[in-house]
């Protein structure tokens, strides 16, 4: 496989009747979701509705059941390692940068996990898309600000050459300026790489601004919404 070939290949995510939760507390009750190749999909919904659970179920971090769970035509296994190899990168809630490692080493870990063949050029491509990361490369990731850490976490995901990038709560705890610039860079990177984006956030406005489509999680299932239609949105939230 040459560098970039995986990113360029299109892949669709197909999920039907997904059920997942924590022990007996089931959070998702038969969720259907399709993400087309190259599509930017936002997932909104109040706290505890299962947004993070959805991403964890896709990357195999937690037990789940589904009638169908496919990515790029192949079934998704219950294993985070396999998910990464299949081309799904998961940027977890709370950034989870490796604090004792430098930013450069965090990027290398992303490449190692993604089994990237031509790491140097892939890394250069990602760094070029996030120029503000350059002065941070040799600093310990744990010493960075929240916004810088979010940038590192997303860059670390992109270095794995995903066909689908999943970002959990990009805006959480960040300033509006940081949210705006990181969102724009993330979405444009995905578009240039031909990767789809599945973006979970409580900030409905920012999802509406950047995504092709926004869905709302409610009672464990997904509903399509128009983020500009405040009436419909309010009734879904409250």
């Amino acid at each position, binding site marked *: 496989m040459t560098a970039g070939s995986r990113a360029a290949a299109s892949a669709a995510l197909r999920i039907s009747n997904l059920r997942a939760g924590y022990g007996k507390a089931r959070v998702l009750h038969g969720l259907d979701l399709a993400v087309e190749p190259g599509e930017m999909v936002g997932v909104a919904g109040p706290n505890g509705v299962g947004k993070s659970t959805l991403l964890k179920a896709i990357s195999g*971090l937690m037990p789940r059941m589904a009638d169908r769970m496919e990515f790029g035509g192949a079934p998704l296994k219950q294993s985070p390692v396999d998910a990464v190899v299949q081309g799904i990168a998961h940027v*977890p809630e709370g950034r989870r940068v*490796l604090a004792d490692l430098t930013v450069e*080493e965090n990027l*290398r*870990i992303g490449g190692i*996990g993604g089994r990237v063949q031509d790491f140097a050029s892939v890394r250069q491509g990602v760094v070029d898309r996030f120029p503000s990361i350059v002065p941070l490369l040799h600093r310990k990731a744990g010493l960075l600000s929240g916004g810088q850490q979010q940038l590192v976490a997303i860059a670390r995901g992109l270095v794995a050459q995903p066909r689908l990038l999943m970002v959990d709560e990009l805006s959480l705890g960040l300033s509006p300026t940081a949210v705006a610039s990181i969102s724009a860079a993330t979405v444009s990177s995905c578009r240039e790489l031909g990767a789809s984006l599945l973006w979970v956030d409580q900030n409905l406005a920012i999802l509406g601004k950047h995504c092709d489509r926004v869905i709302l999680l409610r009672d464990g299932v997904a509903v399509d919404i128009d983020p500009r239609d405040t009436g419909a949105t309010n009734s879904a939230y409250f």
Partner: protein
Amino acid sequence: MGLLLSAGISGIAVGLLYGMIGFAIVMLYKSTGVANFAQGTLATLGGFVCWASMTDLGLPLWAAIVVALVASAVLGVAVYFVVIRPRPSAGNLNITVRTLGLSLLLLAVMEWRWGAGAPYRFPAIVEGTGVQVADFVVPAQSLLIAAVAAAIMGTLWALFRYSNVGLSFRAMAEQPDTARLLGLPATRLSAATWAISAVLGTVVAILLAPSSFLAPSTMESYLLFTFTGIVLGGLTSLPGALLGSVIVGVVSNVTIVALSLEAGVLVVFALLLVVMLLRPQGLLGRPESVRL
């Protein structure tokens, strides 16, 4: 004075041996959250494999060492898959107690197989009295220990710092869940960590056996000194485990020569208590902090 100085120097050598065991324990603790109480008996078993390869198979010492190192790598991996890996949901305390059980089991196996004639004489790798420096002699065995420890620790340091495997290990040690999420092969890394720590133990047993003789419980008393060194160094710090153990080795050796054997043990454990009271995070460790 010369006597104390040479006691100090052989204390450094002994401390490096504690330190290598300690390094293995901290490495496993950091990456898997398990304190491996079987580290000492695994090391002794490696020593016995080496000894049996010479006496039962008639191999020369160097070949027996190779056999023992390979066997302990395999044993380390086997221990991981048979004893440690099943039922991870049982929690780290359960798994830590498993290592205690494994230690007792291995001890019983060695007593059954080799206990009757123990302790055994074990050949030294280097002969000769050593090097004369000013008015005292540095024993050849101490020089060998220092050289082996420096080579192994240097290799491991470079591995952790520069290689993909080492980097993956550090990621797994810091955040096991995130490492899995990023696609790092946690199972293979853990198995490799167990192999490395078992090999380290066997190296220590082979270096220690010529002076201490070989018996099933040879490493047990050393393990207490090793734990003191680890706590002194900071519990989760790899260089700290080495530094703390060297301090323990020097302090105990000098005290033994200056006062008595009993005083040497007493001073070490008094040191442990004082450090835990005055600097609970150890010399190179970080204070526990929780981000709210």
